C-alpha cells in the first residue's frame, strides 16, 4: 500500500509540473492585464512602470522560472488586484466552497442512494419511473436555470428561504461554518440542492443500474438460498458491490463540484472560491488564476488518490501491495 501511495505521489508531482506549464503559459496568451490596470490617461512611461512593477518586463521563460522557484517554496505569488498572497485569498474563501460542496455531496447520497435503490428494486412501478424522470431532468436542465427558478419560487414568491449569502456563521476549530445555525442552514439549502442535482442524478442512476445487475447474480441468489434476510441481502451483500462504481464516480465528481461551483456560487452570491475565480478572470489577475488552477490540480490528484484507497477497501480484488496470493 505504501509503495502504491508513493508511486501515486510521484505521478502527481509530474502532473502538477505539466499543469504549471500549461496554466502559466495559457494565462499569458489570453490577454495582457496591464491594460486593465492602466487608466486611460496612462502614457507609455506609466505603462512601462506598471509592467516593470508586475515583473512582466522579463522574458516569459524567466518569469516561469521565477514562478516555479517560488512555487517550490510554497509561494504562488501575489494577487494583482488585492495585493495579498494568492493562496491566502484562496484559503480564506475555500471553507465556504468546501461546505457548500460537502452539503451537496451529503444531499446527493442521502437522497440518491435510497431513490436509486427503490428504482432498482421496483423498476416497473410508477414511482420508479418518476424517480428516473427526475434524474434525467437533473442531468439535462442547466444549473443556473434551476437556481433562478428556486430563488423565484422559495425566495421571491413564498419568501421561505433567503436568496443570497451565507447567513449566520459559527466558528468551529477556527473555521467559520454556516451549517450549525438555523439561519445558516436556510442559506445553505438552495445552493447545496442546486449543486447536488447532477451528483444526485448520477447516484440514482448508478445505484439503480448496479442493483438491477447485482440482483441477477448467482451470489445474491446463493445468499437468498441460504435464507439470509432480504434486508441484509440488499443492504450488505448487494450494496457493497453497488457502492464501488458510486464511490469512484462521486470521488471524481466531488472534485469538479468543488472546483467548478462557479455557477452556483454566482447565482446565490455564495462567497466561495468559485466566485473569486470569476472575478479574477474578469480582471486578468494572473497570479490568482494560476494559483487557483494549481490548487484545483492538487485537490483533484489528492481526491483521486483517496478514491483509489477507498476503492481498494471496498473491492478486495483491486487491493494492491501483494496481499493477494
Amino acid at each position: 500500500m505504501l509503495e502504491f501511495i508513493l508511486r501515486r505521489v510521484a505521478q502527481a508531482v509530474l502532473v502538477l509540473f505539466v499543469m504549471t506549464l500549461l496554466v502559466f503559459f495559457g494565462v499569458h496568451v489570453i490577454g495582457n492585464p496591464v491594460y486593465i490596470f492602466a487608466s486611460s490617461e496612462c502614457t507609455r512611461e506609466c505603462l512601462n512602470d506598471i509592467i516593470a512593477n508586475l515583473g512582466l518586463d522579463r522574458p516569459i521563460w524567466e518569469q516561469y522560472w521565477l514562478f516555479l522557484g517560488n512555487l517550490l517554496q510554497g509561494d504562488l505569488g501575489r494577487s494583482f488586484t488585492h495585493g495579498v498572497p494568492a493562496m491566502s485569498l484562496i484559503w480564506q474563501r475555500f471553507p465556504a466552497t468546501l461546505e457548500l460542496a460537502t452539503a451537496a455531496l451529503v444531499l446527493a447520497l442521502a437522497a440518491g442512494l435510497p431513490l436509486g435503490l427503490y428504482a432498482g428494486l421496483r423498476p416497473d412501478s410508477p414511482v420508479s419511473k418518476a424517480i428516473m424522470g427526475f434524474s434525467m431532468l437533473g442531468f439535462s436542465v442547466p444549473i443556473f436555470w434551476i437556481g433562478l427558478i428556486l430563488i423565484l419560487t422559495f425566495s421571491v414568491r413564498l419568501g421561505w428561504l433567503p436568496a443570497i449569502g451565507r447567513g449566520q456563521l459559527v466558528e468551529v476549530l477556527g473555521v467559520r461554518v454556516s451549517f450549525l445555525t438555523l439561519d445558516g442552514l436556510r442559506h445553505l439549502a438552495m445552493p447545496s440542492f442546486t449543486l447536488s442535482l447532477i451528483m444526485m442524478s448520477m447516484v440514482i442512476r448508478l445505484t439503480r443500474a448496479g442493483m438491477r445487475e447485482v440482483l441477477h447474480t448467482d451470489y445474491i441468489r446463493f445468499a437468498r438460498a441460504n435464507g439470509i434476510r432480504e434486508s441484509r441481502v440488499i443492504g450488505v451483500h448487494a450494496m457493497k458491490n453497488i457502492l464501488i462504481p458510486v464511490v469512484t464516480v462521486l470521488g471524481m465528481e466531488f472534485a469538479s463540484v468543488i472546483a467548478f461551483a462557479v455557477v452556483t456560487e454566482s447565482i446565490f452570491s455564495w462567497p466561495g472560491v468559485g466566485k473569486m475565480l470569476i472575478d479574477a478572470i474578469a480582471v486578468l489577475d494572473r497570479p490568482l488564476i494560476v494559483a487557483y488552477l494549481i490548487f484545483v490540480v492538487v485537490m483533484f490528484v489528492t481526491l483521486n488518490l483517496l478514491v483509489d484507497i477507498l476503492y481498494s477497501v471496498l473491492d478486495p480484488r483491486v487491493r494492491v501491495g501483494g496481499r493477494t496470493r
Partner: protein
Amino acid sequence: MAPVLDIRGLRTAFATAAGDLHALDGIDLVVNRGEIVALVGESGSGKSVTGFSITGLLPAAARVTAGEVRLNGIDLRALSPAAMRSLRGRKVAMIFQDPMMTLNPVLRIDTQMTDALRAHLPLGRAEARARCAAALAEVGIDEPEARLKMYPHQLSGGMRQRVAIAIALLHSPDLVIADEPTTALDVTIQGQILAVVQRLCREKGTALVWITHDLAVVAGIADRIAVMYAGRIVEQGPVDAVLDAPRHPYTRGLIDSVPASHPKGQRLPQIPGRMPTLTELPEGCAFAPRCTRRSAACAARPDPAEAAPGRWVRCFHPLPGAGG
C-alpha cells in the same frame, strides 16, 4: 414417514409478451431421506427451473402455476415468503454451477458464512466463527481459520466450490439441490467435489437432487435418475436400471451420445434435430419430432406409466425392458 421432497404435477410458467410459457409441465418427483436423485437433461430442459421452483427463488417473470411441492410433508406453495425464507438454508439448501459466481466477490468468506449461519441461529461471533471453521474443515479445506479471512478471489475454483458446499451444509438441511456443481471444474477437482458431497450427504442423511447433463457423474453418484426433456420428466428409475436398459427413446439417444460408450473410430450416434424451445412445443409428446419410434398416437400427450416397479416412462412406444 413423508418423503423429504414430494413434487406432484408441478407447472412453472414464464410470463412473456406472448402469454405464459410453461418451462415445467407436470413434474412428479419423490426424493426420500438420504437418497441421491440425479436430474438429467439438456440445457433448457427445465432442470434448473425445477430447483428454483422448489426453493421459491424463481426469477421475477416466472411463477409456479399448478401442482404441489412438499418438503417433509409441508406444502411449500402455501408458505408465506418469510416462512419460506426460514426454510431456505435450514431445511433446503442449494449449490450452484459456477463457484466463481456463487460467492460474493467483495465479502470475506467469514462474513458470508456467518451470515448464512446466523440467518437461522442466534450465535455469538466467536461461536459462529468456530462453527464455520469446523464446517470448512469438514469439506476438506486445510487451514480453515486462515481461509475464513480471505476473499473468494484468493481461492481456487475447487476451493470456492468447497466453501459453497460448506455453506449449503451448515444447517444440515434435509434436502440439497446441487445445480451442476461440478460442470465448471477440472475433471480431477470434479471427482473430489463429488466425493465430498456424497460422503457428507450419506453421513448426515441429507437427500440430494443433483442437477447435471453429465451421465458419467450420474452413474458415479446417484441412486435414482430422472431424465428431463422440454419441461417434463420422460423417464425415471433406479440409476443402473435406467442407464443399462433405457425405456424412453430420448434416454437411449442421450446415453448413446456419450463418446465413451462406443468403440473408437465408430461414428457417434446423434439425436437428430434439437430440443424445441418453449415457444414451439408440439401438442403431444415433445420428443416425437426427433423420435424414430413415433406414430400417430404421439400427437397426444403421453402420461407417465409405471413400466416396472419404481420405473416410470412417459412414452407411447417405450423400448423393451431388459428381460424382454
